[in-house]
C-alpha cells in the first residue's frame, strides 16, 4: 500500500522556496547526504532516520536519477528505525539481577548507582541483539507545481518529514489548505468568519 499501488492516503503540502537551476544534480547530492545510514555497531536507543528509495527500503542510494526522478515527480521515502525493548521484561530482569547482587554482597538493598549500572548493561546487551521497528513513509513531490503528497496522515510523521525535507533541500513544506481551492479572498474571509449553523431541529 503506497503511492504506487493500493489505497492512497495523502496529506498535501505546498513546497515553498527557490528550486536551483541544476536541481537534478543538487538534489541527488542532497538526498544522498541525508539518506538513511545504517548506524555503526552501536546499541543506542535513539531513532535513526533518512531517505530511501520507495522500491526497496534497503536502497538508500540516489545516484541513479532514473530510480527516483520521474519528471516532474520525485518519489522517495523517509525511513525511521527505532529499537524498543519490552519495558516489563526489562524491569523484572533488572530486579532479579539486583536481588542476585544483594545476595552476593550480603546486603539488603541495592544502591541506585548499582541498579542504574545493571540496567544500562542489560539494555546494552538487549539492544545489540534487537532488530529495530522500521517505518517507511512514501512521498511524491511535484517539482514543477511545487506540491508534495505524503502517504500518511500522522502528525508526528509529517513533522519529521517537514524537518528533514528542510534540512535536505532548504525548502519549507507548508500544509496545504482546502481554502486554497477558493478563487477569491472574500470567500476565504467569509468562510473564516462564519458561525456554526443550527443544523439540528430545535429540541
Amino acid at each position, binding site marked *: 500500500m503506497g503511492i504506487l499501488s493500493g489505497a492512497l492516503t495523502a496529506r*498535501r503540502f505546498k513546497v515553498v522556496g527557490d528550486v536551483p537551476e541544476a536541481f537534478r544534480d543538487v538534489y541527488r547530492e542532497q538526498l544522498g547526504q541525508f539518506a538513511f545510514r545504517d548506524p555503526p555497531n552501536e546499541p543506542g536507543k535513539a531513532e535513526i532516520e533518512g531517505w530511501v528509495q520507495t522500491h526497496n527500503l534497503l536502497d538508500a542510494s540516489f545516484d541513479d536519477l532514473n530510480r527516483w526522478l520521474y519528471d516532474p515527480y520525485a518519489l522517495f521515502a523517509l525511513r525511521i528505525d527505532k529499537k524498543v525493548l519490552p519495558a516489563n521484561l526489562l524491569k523484572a530482569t533488572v530486579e532479579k539481577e539486583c536481588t542476585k547482587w544483594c545476595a552476593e554482597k550480603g546486603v539488603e538493598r541495592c544502591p541506585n548507582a548499582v541498579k542504574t549500572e545493571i540496567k544500562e548493561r542489560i539494555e546494552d546487551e538487549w539492544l545489540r541483539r534487537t532488530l529495530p521497528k522500521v517505518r517507511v513513509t512514501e512521498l511524491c513531490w511535484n517539482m514543477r507545481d511545487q506540491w508534495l503528497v505524503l502517504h500518511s*496522515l500522522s502528525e508526528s510523521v509529517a513533522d519529521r518529514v517537514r524537518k528533514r525535507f528542510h534540512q535536505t533541500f532548504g525548502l519549507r513544506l507548508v500544509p496545504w489548505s482546502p481554502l486554497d481551492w477558493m478563487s477569491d479572498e472574500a470567500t476565504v474571509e467569509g468562510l473564516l468568519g462564519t*458561525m456554526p449553523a443550527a*443544523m439540528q431541529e430545535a429540541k
Partner: protein
Amino acid sequence: MSPDGLPLLPHVASEFYLWLWWSIDQRDAVFDLGGKVGTITLWVEERLAFRHPNETKITAVMTGDRPDETLEARAALAGGKVVQDLRLHMRRDDREFTFTLKGAALDLAQAKLPQAVAGGAEALYDRMFLYEEVALVVGALLQEFARERLSDRWDAVVVPAIRDWSLASRLEAAG
C-alpha cells in the same frame, strides 16, 4: 488564497460534509459542477463518522453499505453530533473512485483509484493524475458549498431544508 496551511474551521468542514450528504439525497446523486469538472455521480459509501461539536474525537462510526440511510446515522445527527469523516464513491465519465474525506483539512484517506497501469513510472503518472482528479472534484464541491454557505439562501433556505430533511428521514427510517 489561504493564510499558510490554515484548515477549514471545524464547523465549516462538518457543515460541508452534511451539505454533501444532503445534496446527494436532493440531487439523486448527480452533481453538475460545470467548468473543468462537468457532471459527476456521488454517493456516501461504507463509512460515516461523527463527533460532538466541541470535540475532535470521533464518537460514533457507521459502516456497511449506505451508512447514510441508517437510523443510527440520523439519530447521531438528531443527537447533535456533526460529521467528521465521510467516505464517498464517485463516478466521473467511466472512472470510479472511492475515498474518505477526513476532518477539517479534508485529508484524503484510503482512496481507491481506477488505476489502469501497474508498476514503474507509468503507474506513478497514472496515480498522480487520478489523485489530481479527485482533488479537482472535491475542490469544485467545496467551491459550490462555499457559494451557498455565504449566500442569503443558506440561512433562509438551505439550513431549514437540511433540518427538515434530517427530521423527515429519521422518522422515515424509524418506520
